[in-house]
Structures are given as C-alpha cells and as structure tokens.
C-alpha cells in the first residue's frame, strides 16, 4: 500500500443500525475496492436495504461510521448515486420521465438554481442509454414496471457519481430489461465506478457480480464471487432455508462435476 493510493470508495467501521431499538444491522466492517460490481445478498430481513440506506445517511445510525472516498458522505454527496426500490415513490406524481431524470442533477446544482440546457442534454443521454429517450415527455404513471426501473437507473446515471447504491434494480422487470440493466451496470463498472447492488436471486447473483457481500444482520462474508459463493457460505447466510439452498447446491454440484473446478 503506497501513500498515493486513493482512499476506498466505501469504508464502513462497526456500523450498527436499529429500528425501534431492535438492531437490524450490527457490527458491519467493510472496505470496498474501486471499480467493482458488488452484489449484496442475504435472506429477507437481513438488513440489505438498511445497510445501503445507512451508508447514504438516510437512516440514523446507532454506532460506527461510514466514509466515502475517505471522507464523510456529507463532504461531497455528489460522488454517490442512488437507485431506490421502485415502490418507494408515488408513480402518480405529476412529473414527466424527463423531470425525474433531471432530479439526478439537483445535487450538483445547489440551492435555488434550476437545471439548465447542459443538464437536459445529460439527462437525454442517460435516457438514451437505458433506451427510454422516446418516453422523455411521458407522465411517469404511464410506464411499465421495467420502464420505471430504467427511469431510476437513468436518474442515477445523470448523477454522474463514482459510487452507486442500488436497491433491487431487477425487482419486477422482465428478462430483456434485466439484461439491458446488467449491460449498463457493467459499462459503469468498466468506467471505474463502484456499484453496490442489493439482489435477491442467487443463481443470477453468481454471474452478475465481481464480488459478493453476504449479509445476515452482520457480514457473513465479503470477497470475490468465486471464493464466496460456496454452499457452506450460503448455508451460513441463509440458515435453514433449504429449498433455495438445495437448488443452488445442486447447480453448484452439477457445475463442479461437469467442469473441472476453476481455481
């Protein structure tokens, strides 16, 4: 480690978050390397959303700290982008697709200033990247679930951040949309951005992500997908949920039997 090395995109120390005095996430220690597409997986109620919300300062923390590029988030919130769960907003809200994507620019504008021509241009490019440009002037309630998810992705792109938190960006989208979203995420990764993505589908988690964070209220494991995605680790994360596990175990076994184990 030389002194010149830039600080990690995300560093978490001893983070504990509680709802109504019951801890949801505790004792999380994590240092996330740059330029990776990272999946956060774990059972329901494991605190996946809570963890990323706490990282962004959306929830009060009980203890510990979070640093983004070596500084508290408040020092420069523009370096962080966010894709919330689709259900977190009212899709009947009287705004157009363009208006929502422009919201991604607000953090850079500061108080009172309105988005200008340049911001509109950026928003248009972002909409184009998720193939929604023809929908720019639509009211957001006239969109399918997959389109809504892509609007949020475009908005996150418009934030032009270096570290992204995404809460289940694949929830309720069809296969084609999922593939399109994965491509965008991989592009971002290839540009050197760091992405933390809450995900709940185990089979795809293995192929989508460079690294995995296995979470069940605290960190069960964090590391490169091939070393973390093991039956033993998943068992530790998911406990007794045998149906999912046996499925995964059998795919794993089939692959290991079929091909020589990659090492």
């Amino acid at each position, binding site marked *: 480690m030389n002194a010149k090395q830039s600080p990690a995109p995300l560093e978490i120390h001893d983070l504990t978050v509680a709802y*109504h005095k019951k801890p949801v996430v505790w004792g999380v220690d994590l240092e996330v390397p740059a330029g990776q597409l990272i999946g956060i997986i774990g059972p329901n109620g494991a605190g996946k959303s809570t963890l990323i*919300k706490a990282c*962004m*300062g*959306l929830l009060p923390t009980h203890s510990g700290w979070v640093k983004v590029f070596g500084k508290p988030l*408040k020092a420069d*919130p*523009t370096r*962080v982008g*966010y894709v*919330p769960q689709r259900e*977190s*907003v*009212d899709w009947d*809200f*009287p*705004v*157009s697709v363009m*208006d*929502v994507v422009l*919201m991604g620019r*607000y*953090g850079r*504008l500061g*108080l*009172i200033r*309105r*988005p200008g021509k340049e911001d509109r241009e950026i928003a248009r490019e972002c909409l184009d990247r998720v*193939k929604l440009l*023809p*929908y720019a002037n639509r*009211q957001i*309630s006239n969109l*399918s679930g*997959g*389109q809504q998810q892509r609007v949020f992705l475009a*908005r996150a792109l418009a*934030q032009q951040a270096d570290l992204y938190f995404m809460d289940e960006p694949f929830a309720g989208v069809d296969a*084609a949309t999922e593939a399109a979203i994965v491509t965008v995420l991989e592009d971002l990764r290839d540009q050197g951005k760091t992405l933390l993505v809450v995900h709940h589908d185990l089979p795809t988690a293995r192929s989508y992500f460079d690294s995995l964070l296995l979470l069940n209220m605290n960190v069960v494991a964090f590391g490169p997908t091939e070393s973390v995605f093991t039956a033993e680790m998943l068992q530790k994360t998911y406990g007794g949920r045998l149906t999912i596990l046996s499925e995964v175990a059998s795919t794993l076994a089939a692959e290991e039997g079929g091909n020589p184990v990659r090492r």
Partner: protein
Amino acid sequence: MVDPWTVDLSLYGWIALMGFLVATACGLVGNYLILRRMALMGDAVSHSVLPGLVIAFLFSSSRGTGAMFLGALAAGIAATVLIEAIHRKTRVKQDAAMGIAFSTLFAIGVLLVSLYSEHVDLDADCVLYGEIAFVPLEPMVTWLGVTLGPVSLVRMAAVLLVVVGLIFAFYKELLVASFDEALARATGINPTWLHYGLMSVLSVVIVSAFESVGAILVIAMLILPGATASLMTDRLGVMHAIAVGHAAVSAWLGVSLGVWLDCSIGAAMVVAGAAIFTLVWAGAVLRRWQRRMGHDVEPVPATSVPR
C-alpha cells in the same frame, strides 16, 4: 346573478379580489400538501393556531396584526414539531399523531378563551367562520399616495407574493423532496427543513386567510383548487396554473352566489369551488366513457418502442 358587478363594483370587487388572493395562496400551498399526502395538515394547522392567537392576544393585549401573526406562526410550527415528535418517537402513525396534536392544541385554545373570556375580545365565530364581506369596510392602506386597498387584502396580497416567490425559488427542492425524500436527502437537500418551511408558510397563509373566510373554510381552499387541478393535468407547473384559475372562478362565482342568495360569501365561495371540482370530475368521467364507447379497440396509442 349579475347584480354585484353592476350595482357596486368597488364593494364586491374588493371581496372577489380578496377571495381570489386567499384561494390562490391556499391553492398553491395546498398543491404541495396534496402531493405530499398530507392534505389534512391544513386542518391540523388551522385548528392549532387558536391557542397561539389567544396567547399572543393575552401578552400584547391587542389584536395588532404583528402579535397575532407571530402567535399563530409559533403555534403552527409547534403543531408541526409536535406531530413529527409523536410520529417519530412512538409507534403512532402520522395521521393519528396529527389528530392528537391538533385536537389537543385546539382544546387548549378553547380552554384559554373560556378562562380569560373577560379579557379576550376574540370572537370564536369569527375565527371559525370569518366574514369576507367586511373586507371593504376596513381602513384603506395608502402607499406613496396610492390607495392600495383594505388592510387585510394588502396583507393577503403580500403573503401571496411571498408564497409565489418561495415556490419559484425552491421549486426543484420542493419537487424532489415531495417525490423522493430519500434522493433529496442523499443529494444534500434537507427534506426536514423543507417540511418545516412549508408548514410555516402554511401557517402564515392560514392566519392571514381565516379572518376573511374563516379557519374551517381555509381548509377547503387548501384542497379544492389542487384537487381540481390534479384531475385535469399530470404536470406540476400546469397544476399550479389550474389552481390559480380555479381560485379566480370560485371567487367570482362565490361573490355572485353569495349576493344572489344573500348568504355568507365565504361559504358561497367554497360551494362554488366544490361545484367546479364536481364539474371537472363529471367531465373526466364523461370523457373516459366517450373514449370507451368511441373506440373499443385501442385506447392507448401504440408506440414503436418495445416495452
């Protein structure tokens, strides 16, 4: 129906203008209440200002505008803080917290009025129902030799200017905090401060409006223009414009109706506003029905883009 406009324009003109100013200020603020799903916050704040008014009156022993304004503003903010505190610190949900806070504050207000009734020259009826017909009888405000209008009308116009100015200045902040509070917070816009700001503006609007239309009717003016607008458009900017139009029409119709029936003009304005809402609603239903009858096959235009 035509009487008020031909017989005495200056008299009814002031009343209609006052009604327009009140309904516009209420309507613009009300749009945000509707979007933020806290429409009844207007109800809560308008009840909660009563103890503030009484306390301000007892301290200043005058019905001077300044003291009343500050008292009501303080009470409005206290109600907001109380609702947030109950909702955050306990498991009580926001609507229930609202119910607790405003009924308690209102009760304290009534209690104070009855305790100090010999010192308090506050007419509860006036606070509750108001009387917009008295606006032209007020002393006129002159500025640089120009007669601007009755006191409460000039004050309402100033409040409306402030409301419009604030909405213009903080348009994007209000938009993102209302649509996606988490994004607002994550991008460094503090939705909590915006909420308190909005509630302070709401308190000011309510206090300056209820002398003319009454506390109870202010609630209607907060909701009706925005509710009507939301039936007609799906853009926030247009929604504001329609709310202003609704305010103008209901003020004019209200004065006509009030004079024609010789009844409370404030109440007539609300009835007119509600009638416009009903008409727009009926229009929307009719249009949907026509569209269904007209072309059964493809109501939504097909797009060239794959879903």
